[in-house]
């Protein structure tokens, strides 16, 4: 960039720019209007990939599915940061440059505005005929009388007025530029608010089965995302119990099966020492505990299962949440039994399969089990069982919703086919090879909650509101100047009224007409409307 500019006409070669000059030149380029426009378009373009490629931060499940389906593109995309566009270097570069350009643009304008806002209206141009709007009339009144009246009229119309020599100068609409500057400053405020939330905030998801409790500590979350400057010690020490969950499924008509009015009853404590309170949360109605919000996101079923060893001792028992796969709440889930026993010693058992809240079965080639209704009217589970090594001991964290089948062998029936456990409510199935039994004891509902703390929300909101106010000012306030000149001309007074609209595409003719009409006493010569284009 510091390459000398060639000037062929003189053969003179400009010396290379000194660092200071280069910096000045770069700053000027960056803060020019054209650069700002280009950066705006680039920002719009750069936002597009984030809507096409699944984003890690928005939907990590879909992002990982996408990765599995596109093994060749994934490394390239990862390098380009396409799974987290809005945190990527290039996206940040664009908006940081845009902000710099904005700062560079508004600081000089603030100074200009500061000086301009206190300035008196400019003197009337010598030749008012050049202005886009002009009216002329003659009268017998004294010029001073006319000018005094013009001054009063314009003042009443909230113009800033100044009488110089034979003319009144007036101006109004100073706030347009103020609105403009406010808008640009507010964009910075919004960014500060947004960044505050991103750096110090956190967002976590947790599934809580009804009657279970949750305490706000890191270990209790199923998934947790926090900003770079977040400190886990600062988690507010609340705890709650999910007492119940209410949902109504429409049972008849076209929308049968649609869930509506779901809500969860919570008993919560803002801190271990504070009083217990009860509340209900639902979609659009979160619980707010000192700066942290608890949102009800979705719901599902957690079947109670018990796995017993051959001797009748309990190897595993509990309510395991299953994840709904469609609107019938056919749900998928996994049960891991790390301490089962068999004749030859201890082993591990894994089961995976589906839960059907209202079980149905279609016979035939394309048939199979299905859920007829999302409410738990006839619950049943259908699972395949495995034994061997669940892979829990290699230290790597494992999803509770997936079975690592590397060390597992499927359990088979006597005829060699894989064993499928189909259990209705209360039913028990026996596992082969003396592995014991599995019982389907009951069903609980669970709620998926999102707990988030987003500082800077109010700053961002305040910023956008200010931006909107500034925007309205910059779009709809019309800065304009009006001059009235009165001259004694051969025994009579010639009065000229002229105006200039300084906003784009404004039309002053009505205002000038109205002013001329109220300025002119009833008995004077008719005006000559003069409009030069």
């Amino acid at each position, binding site marked *: 960039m510091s390459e000398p500019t060639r000037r062929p006409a003189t053969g003179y070669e400009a010396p290379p720019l000194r660092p200071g000059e280069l910096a000045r030149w770069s700053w000027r380029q960056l803060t020019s209007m054209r650069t700002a426009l280009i950066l705006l378009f680039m920002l719009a373009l750069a*936002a597009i990939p984030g809507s096409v490629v699944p984003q890690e931060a928005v939907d990590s499940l879909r992002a990982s599915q996408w990765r599995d389906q596109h093994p060749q593109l994934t490394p390239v995309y990862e390098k380009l940061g396409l799974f987290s566009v809005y945190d990527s270097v290039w996206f940040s570069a664009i908006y940081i440059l845009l902000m710099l350009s904005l700062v560079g643009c508004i600081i000089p304008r603030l100074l200009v505005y500061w000086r301009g806002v206190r300035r008196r209206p400019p003197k009337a141009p010598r030749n008012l005929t050049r202005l886009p709007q002009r009216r002329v009339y003659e009268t017998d009144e004294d010029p001073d009388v006319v000018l005094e009246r013009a001054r009063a009229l314009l003042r009443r119309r909230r113009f800033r007025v100044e009488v110089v020599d034979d003319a009144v100068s007036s101006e109004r609409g100073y706030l347009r530029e103020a609105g403009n500057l406010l808008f640009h400053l507010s964009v910075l405020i919004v960014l500060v608010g947004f960044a505050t939330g991103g750096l110090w905030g956190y967002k976590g998801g947790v599934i809580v089965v009804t009657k279970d409790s949750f305490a706000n500590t890191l270990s209790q979350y199923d998934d947790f995302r926090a900003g770079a400057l977040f400190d886990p010690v600062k988690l507010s020490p609340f705890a709650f119990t999910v007492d119940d969950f209410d949902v109504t499924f429409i049972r008849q008509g076209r929308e*049968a099966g649609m869930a509506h009015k779901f809500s969860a009853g919570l008993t919560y404590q803002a801190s271990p020492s504070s009083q217990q309170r009860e509340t209900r949360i639902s979609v659009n109605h979160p619980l707010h505990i000192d700066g942290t919000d608890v949102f009800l996101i979705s719901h599902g079923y957690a079947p109670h299962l018990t796995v017993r060893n051959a001797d009748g001792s309990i190897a595993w028992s509990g309510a395991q949440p299953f994840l709904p796969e469609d609107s019938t709440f056919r749900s998928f889930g996994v049960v891991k039994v790390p301490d089962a026993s068999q004749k030859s010693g201890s082993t591990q058992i894994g089961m995976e399969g589906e839960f059907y809240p209202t079980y149905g079965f279609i016979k035939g080639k394309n048939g199979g089990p299905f859920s007829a209704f999302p409410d738990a009217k006839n619950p049943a589970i259908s699972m395949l069982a495995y034994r061997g090594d669940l892979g829990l001991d290699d230290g790597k964290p494992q999803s509770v919703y997936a079975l690592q089948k590397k060390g597992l062998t499927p359990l088979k029936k006597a005829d060699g086919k894989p064993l499928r456990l189909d259990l209705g409510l209360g039913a028990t199935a026996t596992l082969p090879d003396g592995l014991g039994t599995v019982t389907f004891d009951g069903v609980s509902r669970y709620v998926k909650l999102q707990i988030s703390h987003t500082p800077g929300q109010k700053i961002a909101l305040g910023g956008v509101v200010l931006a909107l106010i500034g925007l309205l000012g910059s779009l709809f306030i019309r800065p304009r100047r009006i001059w009235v000149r009165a001259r004694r001309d051969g025994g009579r007074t010639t009065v000229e009224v002229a105006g200039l609209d300084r906003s784009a595409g404004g039309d002053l003719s009505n205002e000038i007409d109205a002013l001329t009409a109220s300025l002119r006493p009833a008995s004077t010569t008719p005006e000559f409307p003069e409009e030069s284009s």
Partner: protein
Amino acid sequence: MTHSQFELLSNQAVAACAVVYFLAVLAHFAQWAAGRKVEEPVEQPVGVGAAGSGTPLAATPTGPTTIDEPERMELFGRVGLSLTVVAAFVHFIAMASRGLASDPVRVPWGNMYEFTLTGTWVVVMGYLLLYRRYSLSWLSPVVTSFVLVTLMIDVLVLYTPVVPLRDALQSPWLIIHVVAAITATGAFTLGGMCSALYLVKERWQRKHEADGSTGRGYLARLPELPVLDRIAYRTHAFGFPIWTFAALIAGPIWAHYAWGRYWGWDPKEVWAFITWVVYAAYLHARATSGWKGRSAAVVALVGLATLWFNFVGINFFFGSGSQHSYAAPEPVAVVRTLE
């Protein structure tokens, strides 16, 4: 009336208003066809005054049908406008009864079919309200045919039977957010029409300047380029703050309550942001760099394209990935009967 009767009424009203819009389109086409035979007034700024002001004041007496044509043009123009007013009224009935058809009664903004129904109505109302102020008789054929075609697509592709609102939509913010978004969309659509006409007329004018001929017909009767440019600018300047409110204030507040975050880069949010940035660039370019006319019109149309893509495209192409996918056919009837 029962809810299902209201639903029937709504469907019939949509059909009826489409028929009336169709007649309005025919009337406006006839208006401009009649206009072709009339020499356009030279240097007569089109559009000072009331309805039918496109009518030339000085028709050449040498033409074969000069006496009747201006009157005919005005007559067809008036007929078209009256039909549009009637159609807009029926259109409103269609919307209102759509809301009354649901049990419980709700606002008619639950899915894409209803958004489009309301959006087209806003476009028509915007056109009717500005008709006198900007003498929009030249915009009539564009608006009426646009609304007719959009309504047809709406009924053929997007029709959804009335269902109650989902839990996430049950919020006062639905009304605030959606009313603002639809109003801004209507304003941007009208503005985009002016910008498109600007580009067409500009091309036409250059062609005629090149070969020295004078044109006749519809394009010749469009307002002068600066007037088109100014109307486009004003409509966009009206729509932009409303869009800012809908997409960047009301939307995030509601998203906070419904989804637990105020801005989550959901595809719909991303595209609303893109639209906002493009229109911001449009206003910025006009205000500071003095971009007027052609380049400004192109930017405005890019903005309109992102807006419509966001409205239609997201719901179809990103259906499962967007929390805004209210068009994606929600599998509501899940009760299967066994044979």
